[in-house]
Every structure is written in structure tokens, then in C-alpha cells.
């Protein structure tokens, strides 16, 4: 028993070392940094205080950024669920041949860099972009609709990036369910619609919940998409951190914002998980 435990530790050691060096160390350094003071002329001071946190928490400007970030993440998650669940169900019902092709199409975008995909959206959404030009040319609009540098544009592109994660999570949940349950419901007199809403969907809920968790946390901390489509005008938390580090050079303040984002996302994830466990713990494994 104990030898097994120690062997388990030994075997996970390389991964643990990697984890410690590449994740925990920078995280710890950022954490410490967030308590340091900063002066425009003197640079980073070595003293420790809560001043940075006080500055962020006391400024409505930052509240607005956090609020916007989480709203974008939430709306992205909801839209991803609305698109991903039917898509996963269609995938689940496909014949194996078409399914393998469709899976490739679904996860294909993940093989292309987020930056490239987002730049694609920039080309489409710009004031002189493809969509606006087309709409103007066919005479539907006179002045271009503003889509670049809006939260809506960011949500649109984020949904495009995140949907595959939702589809895969829901599809996995659908595959875990016994296909005979649908036949059972049918034999008991249920119509296809009822079968979907009363039998299939509820059993896929764990997948929707875990997919939402992934999509939400990735969206809340996304950088490339809001940086390209939001620019300076529509700031989210991660782009604010970037600006503090690289433009203002106020590293401690940037570190404090980053820590707050981490804590906030972590809090949302944990409470979400708790909720799911409490609600579904006795129903699903």
C-alpha cells in the first residue's frame, strides 16, 4: 500500500516538477509582485502592502472592466451551449462515416491559431470589412454598422473559438448514455420531441455543465481575441493586465489585477462545481 503510494508519487514526479517550475513559480512571483509598491520614477519597490489591491477595488473603472469581462464570458458560454448542444446531438445521431468527417470539421478550427482566426473576424467585421461592404453594396444600409471594437464583436469571435469545446464535452456525455433509453422511452409512448427534451437532454446536462465551465473560464481569461477585436476601446481584464505590464510598466498593479482575475475565475468555477455536485451528485457518476 505505502510502496504503491510512493511509487505513484515517484511516477508523477516529472510532471509535478514541470508543473512547479512552469506554473507555480511564475504564479508565486506574480503573487509577491502584486504586493510591491510602484513609483513612476523609482520603479518597483521592495516593500509589501495592499495598496495595489486597494487601488483596483476602489476604482469604478476597474469594476467596469471586470463586469464587462464576465458578461462577455457569460454570454459566450450561453451562446456556445445553445449552438453546441444541438450540434453534439446531430453528431451523436450521425452514421460513423459522416460523424468522423464532421468531428474533423468541428475541431478543425482548433488547429488554426486563435490569432489567425481572430484576424479573419477583423477582416469580416471592420467598417470597411467584408460584411459592411456587402451590405452597403446591396443597399441594405447606408452607413457601416459598427462591429469592430464592440463587446458584441468579441463575443462573436469567442463563440467561434469556444464552440468546439462545448460540442466535445456534450458529445462525450451523450455517448456515455445508454442508447436503449431512447428506445425505452419510445416504447412507453414518447414522441421524438419528448424523447429529446425529457430523456436525451437531461442526461447530457453533465456535459453541458462541464463544457460551460471550460468555455467560461477560457473566455474570461482570453487575450488574443479581445486584444484584436476590442483594442484599447473595449478593454477586458486580460488586456488591461497587458497594458499595465507593457505600456504603463506598472507591473505590481498588473500583477494585482491578474491575481484578482485568477481568484474571481477560480471562485466562479468552484461554486459552479459545488452547485453541480449538489444537484447531480446522486444522479450521475
Amino acid at each position, binding site marked *: 500500500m505505502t510502496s504503491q503510494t510512493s511509487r505513484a508519487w515517484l511516477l508523477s514526479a516529472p510532471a509535478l516538477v514541470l508543473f512547479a517550475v512552469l506554473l507555480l513559480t511564475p504564479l508565486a512571483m506574480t503573487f509577491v509582485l502584486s504586493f510591491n509598491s510602484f513609483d513612476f520614477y523609482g520603479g518597483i519597490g521592495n516593500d509589501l502592502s495592499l495598496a495595489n489591491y486597494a487601488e483596483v477595488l476602489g476604482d469604478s473603472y476597474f469594476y467596469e472592466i471586470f463586469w464587462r469581462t464576465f458578461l462577455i464570458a457569460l454570454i459566450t458560454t450561453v451562446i456556445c451551449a445553445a449552438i453546441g448542444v444541438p450540434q453534439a446531438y446531430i453528431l451523436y445521431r450521425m452514421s460513423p462515416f459522416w460523424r468522423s468527417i464532421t468531428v474533423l470539421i468541428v475541431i478543425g478550427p482548433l488547429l488554426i491559431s486563435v490569432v489567425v482566426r481572430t484576424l479573419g473576424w477583423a477582416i469580416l467585421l471592420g467598417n470597411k470589412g467584408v460584411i459592411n461592404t456587402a451590405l452597403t453594396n446591396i443597399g441594405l444600409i447606408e452607413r457601416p454598422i459598427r462591429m469592430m471594437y464592440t463587446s458584441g464583436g468579441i463575443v462573436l469571435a469567442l463563440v467561434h473559438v469556444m464552440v468546439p469545446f462545448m460540442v466535445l464535452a456534450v458529445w462525450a456525455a451523450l455517448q456515455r448514455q445508454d442508447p436503449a433509453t431512447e428506445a425505452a422511452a419510445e*416504447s*412507453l*409512448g414518447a414522441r421524438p420531441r419528448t424523447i429529446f427534451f425529457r430523456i436525451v437532454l437531461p442526461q447530457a*446536462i453533465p456535459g453541458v455543465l462541464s463544457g460551460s465551465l471550460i468555455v467560461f473560464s477560457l473566455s474570461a481569461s482570453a487575450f488574443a481575441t479581445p486584444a484584436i477585436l476590442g483594442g484599447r476601446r473595449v478593454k477586458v481584464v486580460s488586456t488591461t493586465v497587458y497594458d499595465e505590464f507593457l505600456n504603463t510598466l506598472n507591473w505590481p498593479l498588473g500583477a494585482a489585477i491578474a491575481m484578482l482575475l485568477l481568484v474571481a475565475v477560480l471562485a466562479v468555477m468552484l461554486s459552479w462545481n459545488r452547485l453541480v455536485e449538489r444537484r447531480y451528485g446522486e444522479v450521475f457518476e
Partner: protein
Amino acid sequence: MAFLELHGLTKRFGDFAAVDDLTFTVERGSFVSLLGPSGCGKTTTLQMVAGFETPTEGKIILDGKDLSGIPARERGLGIVFQTYALFTHMTVEENVGFGLEMRKVSRAERKRRVADALDLVHLSHLGNRYPRQMSGGQRQRVALARALVIEPQLLLLDEPLSNLDAKLREEMQLELRRIQREANVTTLMVTHDQSEALALSDSIVVIDHGRLRQDATPFDVYETPQSSFVSRFLGKSNNFSARLESAGPDGSKLVCGSLDLQGPRVDLAPGPVEIALRPERITLVGADAGQLRGTVAERVFMGNQWLLRIETEIGDMLVMRYNTGRAEAEQGATVGLSWKPEDIRILPAEETSA
């Protein structure tokens, strides 16, 4: 007219006939088993009756009504799936009540009927549990209650006991029969387990490669198998090829290897045949008595009985003896084998299957 009739039912997947010209009937209130080896088309047959598969040819008539074209949800059959297919996100009561809800049965009546159904399967105390919190045997009962609560004309069971361990399976066999009798529902069960079929059924339909091999009561299927396949599939059997020399009203004469044998009267023409002899019909006698002499090659003690493999000049013979409290012949001992001529079954020589 029988309650359920299958006429020339055939299902082809491409060129392959999974079910081939199957015809049999099920009487109202009876318990019929479809028995056959894995892949012989049992599930496919059941799926066609249930309405999940469309027959390629033939028809199914239930209570005088042709079922073709009627979708599964309108057939009103109770089905217990091999995996039980319980709705994991619903409690036991919700599972059982689902069929009634679909039938728009009022809430009060639904409650009463669900309680009755759970009572029938002895699960009244677990109505609020989720399937995941139950044992295999309990889940099995929930599936049964869910199928029975809609008062189906016909209950279909697909290997209902195959997911249970041996001891539970025996208990559930008795339970299943009790529940079926109490609910008085015509039942068609699929199984590949011959002992289950023998124990539960009023009548057994043996199929192989999608074809009907025999349709009779358990006793008749076991006692008078009509083919080598049936004799070997149900219970243990010693089968040898032989020649039928003559068949008269008082019995028949057979030659098996160098052995001359007496057999019961039979309706076959003289020629090559197969003879079958059940292990439990053979008695061990002194080495020089009996019809055949052999050496005990193996001896297995099984508690209530002994199983012996005896090497003889016509081939290996399995012999089963009840444990009467004294040791049977030792390994290596020479023994005589004796049986009554009427215990021999004479079967048509197995056609060399294509």
C-alpha cells in the same frame, strides 16, 4: 387463433439473413422463450415485434391485428432491455410513471398504479432512489415495473437476467415467473441460457442462424429434441453418428462403430443417423455388465452430482451421477455403462451445413 403470430418473418441486412422465415405463435397469457446461441437473430426478432426494426418479409399479428406500419410508440408493448435502459436522471417512481405520463393518466391514478407496480416487484420502499443507487437486481425490477405499469398486451424481455450474477439470477428466475403470473401478461423472452429457458417457459422456440429449429414445451424440447443441434444446445448430450439398420414397431436396431444397439421405435428410414444419450440416463455397472465398457478419464465432483468423462470404443461419454453419499468410480477405473434402449434418441444425421 393464437395471441401473437409470426408468419414467415425475415430480416436481411444486405445479403445476410439475420432472421430467416420464422413462424411461431404465442398463446395468450403464456411465457415463451426464444432460445439460441449468440448472433442467431433473437434480438433482431424481438426488435421487429417491438417495432424498432422493419421486417424484410413476413408479418406479425398481435391479437388479430397486423402490426406492420404501426410505430413502436403506438404498439403499447412493455419492453425490458438487456441493459435495463433506466432513465438515470429520474427517480424510481418517475421512471415507472413515465409511460403513464405519456398516456396522460391523471396524477392521482398514476400515483396509485406506480405504487401497485412497485409493490408487485417488491420495491415500494425504494421509490425515491435514483437508479444509480440501486443494485443490479433492483434495477432489473424497476425495469420490469416500468414495463408492466402500462398494462401492456405483451411483455418483451431481452436477456433480462444476463447482467446478474449466478445466485441472483436464480432468485430472479423465480421472481420473474411469479411476477409474470401475477400480472398475467403474455411474455416473449429472449435468452441464450438454456437453463433459464427451461425453468421459466411454457414453451421454447429454439432458433439457430435465424431459422426455427424446434417449438415445443421445455420438457419436449429436452426429452425429444428433433435435431442434433437442439439435443446439444439444451443440456449435455452424448452424440454419436450411427446407422439405423431396421425400425420396427417394437424398437429399432442400430450400429454405432462396432457396437450393436437397441433403440426405441422411430419414424426414420434405415440409413445414417445420429444417436443422442443424456449423461444422467447412463448408470455405471460392473466392468463386464452393461452395453459398453470404458475407462474413467476424468471425474469432477459438483456437490449434488458427479460428472465423469469415460473413454469408450465409440468415443468419449459424459456420465452424470447424483451424489448419494458415496464416492464414484475413481479415475482410471474400468466401468460398464448401461442404459435403457428407450433413453436413446435417434435423430436425422446432421445435414452438412453450408
